[in-house]
């Protein structure tokens, strides 16, 4: 799982707004008995996967922050390999305060919710995550 990110923050009245563009290359696999198979994740009882990219970080204001930047529904039958480039975050990356400026350690992780035809609803976190630093200054000139 690899993500390449470019990011900056824009000044807003009360809270920092982060802008992130990213690439995602991922294979959603299911590990069974140590063997990896591509198509295993969509077994007979899996209706869909709800994928989401979340940013997790700490600020002065809050010990833990998690913001979902992007999500996608992958139905049974869709290709479990993702090859997305230059994606912009779907949702506004607002912090609760001004904790993005100069924050060196924002971790982006890809996770997914397995929705079965019937049964348990597990939440799985993908292996591999990317750490993203935000710059120390606000960007006022860049357009998104």
């Amino acid at each position, binding site marked *: 799982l690899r993500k390449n990110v470019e990011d900056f923050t824009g000044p807003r009245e009360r809270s920092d707004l982060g802008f992130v563009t990213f690439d995602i290359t991922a294979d959603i696999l299911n590990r069974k008995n140590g063997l990896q198979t591509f198509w295993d994740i969509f077994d007979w009882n899996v209706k869909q996967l709800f994928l*989401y990219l979340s940013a997790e970080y700490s600020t002065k*204001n809050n010990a833990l922050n998690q913001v979902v930047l992007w999500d996608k529904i992958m139905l049974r039958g869709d290709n479990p390999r993702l090859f997305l480039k230059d994606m912009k975050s779907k949702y506004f990356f*607002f912090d609760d305060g001004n904790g993005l400026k100069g924050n060196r350690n924002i971790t982006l992780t890809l996770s997914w*919710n397995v929705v079965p035809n019937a*049964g348990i609803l597990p939440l799985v976190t993908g292996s591999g995550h990317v750490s993203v630093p935000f710059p120390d200054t606000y960007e006022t000139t860049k357009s998104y």
Partner: protein
Amino acid sequence: RAAGLWFRWPGSGGAAMDLFGDLRRMNKRQLYYQVLNFAMIVSSALMIWKGLIVVTGSESPIVVVLSGSMEPAFHRGDLLFLTNFHDDPIRAGEIVVFKVEGRDIPIVHRVIKVHEKGNGNIKFLTKGDNNEVDDRGLYKEGQNWLEKKDVVGRARGFLPYVGMVTIIMNDYPKFKYALLAVMGAYVLLKRES
């Protein structure tokens, strides 16, 4: 076994005849017995429900999905099984069932933003998968975040379609009464043999 208290009139024919015949023959003791049986069934059901509430930590461990805002994952009529353990942290991506302050109807949506303070205070934002915008429009006037106290539970498992019965009973109360009448008649009249 209804020991020794039942007996058949010799020669009475046909199931319908038997039913009315039974009704006439039922003496008081038998009737009380059947009523007690019925009460026991109802009490057991209630106990199981209360037990579920204790075990899951949720005030409503089984809920029916009422809207299509979480499609294509959940549809109207699906049944969700919830837990609400106090120590379970609320994390982005989880499906939570919550109630907006002052409203009775629980809403099933996904957590998309979490801000947690060091002391455990959490505030979070939700959004239905099938909705364009987040739930701020659904919250109380001026409320921008949900808190732990608004949570009824987290969705841990689900069964499709099964909850439709409750929706039908709600929308067509005559159906509900008919169903109750049939169940009551069955329990009161069934004979233990």
